[in-house]
């Protein structure tokens, strides 16, 4: 058997594993863990109280049990000498134990929970208005996103011109808008502007407020991205005779784009969530539509439905933006 023979290798590895094993502390050895598992099961069967509403003393017993389970699972998951599937299985077991304890002792009346929050009957026929609300949400979000990002980009490029008067104006704008809560901004736009003679529909005022807000944040994001590009890039481009604007368009912005994608996508995801604020200006977007059905049917199920719809849109969006981030990183220039 040559040293590189697989059989020789496995035996050597097993020997080494055994030696390592003998050096392990007591609490990591399989015998101890197995014994502890038996103890925990006996604890659960004989010591855990049987009532729906435990007294304080009984709560102490329950919590003690859970802590012991956590310790047991902890030793398994933190041990890198055990196979990975063991740690994963232990983590799942922990979740199950938690769920089981919760179900057993929370006193929650599950049937009542479903009747109040997951009531299908209440939602019958209401999916129409809810979807209309969703359409309004999407309309506001998409328009504000496009306008906000464009405005932010323009502001950032204007700042790069280093004109002190222009900079003052832009900085003042950004500071004021960022310091104002979005809901206050919306209320000012919706309720106060008409007194100045500026009349617009509720939806337009919603879009305006969100655009202003978005533009302030994205201008800072773009500015940081632009400034993160090495001065040498600008020097090389200007030395070739490229104008400031051409340098920005052909050299700086394409590189800044990659830097800017993570904070930009998280801002846009935040924008979609912020559309809920528009419910305050009597815009019938998703949240307001849900609230209307809730008031009419006297049941909060529509709100849960709206929450689930938000999740269904936002979770894929965040996953997508993560994938985009990763793709940008592996494209160029990160390795050195």
């Amino acid at each position, binding site marked *: 058997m040559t040293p590189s023979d697989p059989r020789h290798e496995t035996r050597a590895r097993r020997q080494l594993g055994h030696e390592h094993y003998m050096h392990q502390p007591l609490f990591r050895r399989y015998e101890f863990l197995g014994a502890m598992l038996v103890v925990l099961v006996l604890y659960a069967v004989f010591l855990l109280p049987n009532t729906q509403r435990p007294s304080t003393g009984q709560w102490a017993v329950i919590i003690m049990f859970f802590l012991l389970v956590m310790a047991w699972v902890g030793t398994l998951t933190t041990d890198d000498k055990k196979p990975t599937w063991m740690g994963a299985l232990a983590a799942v077991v922990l979740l199950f134990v938690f769920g089981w304890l919760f179900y057993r002792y929370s006193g929650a009346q599950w049937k009542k929970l479903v009747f109040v929050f997951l009531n299908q009957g209440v939602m019958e026929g209401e999916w129409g208005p809810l979807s209309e609300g969703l359409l309004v949400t999407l309309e506001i979000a998409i328009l504000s996103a496009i306008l906000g990002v464009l405005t932010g980009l323009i502001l950032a490029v204007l700042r790069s011109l280093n004109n002190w008067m222009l900079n003052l104006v832009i900085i003042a704008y950004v500071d004021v808008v960022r310091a104002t809560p979005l809901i206050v901004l919306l209320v000012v736009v919706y309720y106060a502007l008409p007194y100045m003679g500026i009349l617009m529909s509720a939806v337009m005022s919603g879009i305006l407020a969100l655009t202003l807000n978005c533009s302030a944040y994205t201008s800072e994001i773009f500015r940081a991205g632009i400034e993160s590009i090495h001065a040498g890039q600008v020097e*090389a481009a200007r*030395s070739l005779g490229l104008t400031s604007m051409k340098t920005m368009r052909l050299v700086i912005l394409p590189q800044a784009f990659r830097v800017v994608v993570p904070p930009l996508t998280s801002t846009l995801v935040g924008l979609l969530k912020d559309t809920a604020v528009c419910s305050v200006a009597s815009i019938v977007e998703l949240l307001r539509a849900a609230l209307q059905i809730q008031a009419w049917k006297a049941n909060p199920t529509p709100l849960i439905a709206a929450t689930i719809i938000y999740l269904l849109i936002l979770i894929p969006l965040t996953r997508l933006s993560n994938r985009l981030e990763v793709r940008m990183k592996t494209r160029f220039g990160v390795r050195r």
Partner: protein
Amino acid sequence: MGEEHGQVMVEAIEIQKYFKDLHVLRGISTKVMRGQVVAIIGPSGSGKSTFLRCLNRLEEPTSGEVFIDGMEVTHPRVDLNKVRAEIGMVFQSFNLFPHLTAIENIKLAPMHVRGLNDKEAMERGMGLLKKVGLVDKAHTFPDQLSGGQQQRVAIARALAMQPKVMFFDEPTSALDPEMIGEVLDVMKSMARDGMTMMVVSHEMGFIREVADHILIMDGGIIIEEGTPAQVFEHPTQQRTQNFLSKIL
């Protein structure tokens, strides 16, 4: 190597530069003839790079005048982009555009400054890549190239604008030793072709072989100048002798 001394290609008159209170350039004046290769050497902090960068106003001279082929670079109302198009600059840290391939790096300025169309820019670019020996790397990105290859692409990029004069700011200082030769070879062939060059460098072998004129700077002034033979063999100033003894 630069035999014809016809026109004055670069003229610097009493260039002064202050960085806040730091007096970096204390009145530099020099003339570079068409086709000449001028090397600028000296200890670090002497202001060599600052002086070179003042010539195309990457640094703004505090006072003084610069003329490139008769065009007054330091004029308050000069079209700086037009002037810079006639000056090629090669940097110590290459400064290639990482989001573009080698050939795209080279094509960018001719297309957007000289107005060449894609085909013409492509032809010119490939011709230059051939000259620097990197035709097969035309479609690779800078981060896939070695330092020496990147610098050669940077030189091709500067040459694509067909400038009247080329400035080199320590072109080989950031390179591993085995790659310095390939870049110096490209610079030598440019000198043979009659390009007017100003080179800030520490490569004494190259300078001795290729330079027509050497400026030795220290503490913001030119302490000595002359041909390589004059400066290296018969330096007149003590400071020059001190500096040379350390590097030769």
